[in-house]
């Protein structure tokens, strides 16, 4: 059985669904609903895989990726490797509404966000610092490096390229760590 309007989202993120649904019920657009729903998850740090303070990179920093797409106009705004800005979906929408581009990345995306009025702040939390510290204590395992020296299955960065290329077995799935 089908009906519109409709909100559907990945994983068990109920509050995000509710937030998006409330926007539609109040007459808001599908675009507003998606932005609001995703932002709710960012604020609540849904299962640690959304928003600040989760899934730090090799240097211990949390960086964010986000995208929003209008299915009527086919306009898109996206950010990748966004640093120091919590509201990644908001910045993605700003890319869509205030540039003629589709995606901004890295430090330049953060500068753009600040210029658009988003606040820059440290995305590190006690939890993300702990995840990073434990990883360092465990000889930086697991990691996504291959064909480098020293052996990345035993050692921490920095690495240099290994001349002889070998296949690395794919890491086993960690369902807490996902895009």
């Amino acid at each position, binding site marked *: 059985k089908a009906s519109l*309007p409709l909100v559907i989202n*990945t994983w*068990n993120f109920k509050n995000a669904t509710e937030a998006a649904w409330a926007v539609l019920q109040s007459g808001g*657009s599908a675009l507003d609903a998606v932005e609001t729903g995703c932002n709710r998850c960012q604020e609540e740090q849904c299962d640690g*895989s*959304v928003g600040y303070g989760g899934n730090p990179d090799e240097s211990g920093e949390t960086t*964010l990726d986000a995208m929003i797409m209008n299915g009527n106009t086919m306009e898109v705004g996206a950010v*990748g490797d966004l640093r120091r800005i919590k509201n990644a979906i908001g910045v*993605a929408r700003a890319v869509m509404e205030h540039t003629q581009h589709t995606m901004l990345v890295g430090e330049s995306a953060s500068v753009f966000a600040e210029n658009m009025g988003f606040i820059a702040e440290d995305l590190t939390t006690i939890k993300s610092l702990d995840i990073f510290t434990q990883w360092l204590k465990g000889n930086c395992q697991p990691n996504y490096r291959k064909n480098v020296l020293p052996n990345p299955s035993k050692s921490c960065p920095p690495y240099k390229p290994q001349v002889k290329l070998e296949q690395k077995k794919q890491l086993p799935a960690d369902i807490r760590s996902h*895009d």
Partner: protein
Amino acid sequence: TIGMIAFDQYGHVAAGTSTNGLTHKVPGRVGDSPIVGAGAYADSLAGAAAATGDGDIMMRFLPSYLAVELMRTGMDPSAACKMAISRIKRHYADFFGAIICANLTGHYGAACNKVDGFLQFHYMVSNGESDAPLLKSVDC
């Protein structure tokens, strides 16, 4: 990661994603979430889809775009989701990933690839049929 699709009452659709990516990724790494057609895709003439999982693998197959294109041909959302997953599985049998799909009439579905520790995929749905969001699941 959250991937979300929303249709208003007129069938206008939008899709979005937000994530902090994989733990211990190499600095500078960007996953599939902000890539159009990979993390999500929406077309008010066909439907929308959003993917989640190992973006390094999934972004190579544009699963959200594929699912929407399949729905454009009339395929139902569950079948479109399954096809998008199976395309990836042909090359990466053990990849971790899932996708949600919805078409213009409000029908929806999901699919996922079974790996150790990931036998079932959960997703949320809100529409006029209930007062509160419903937790749905699909076997991988």
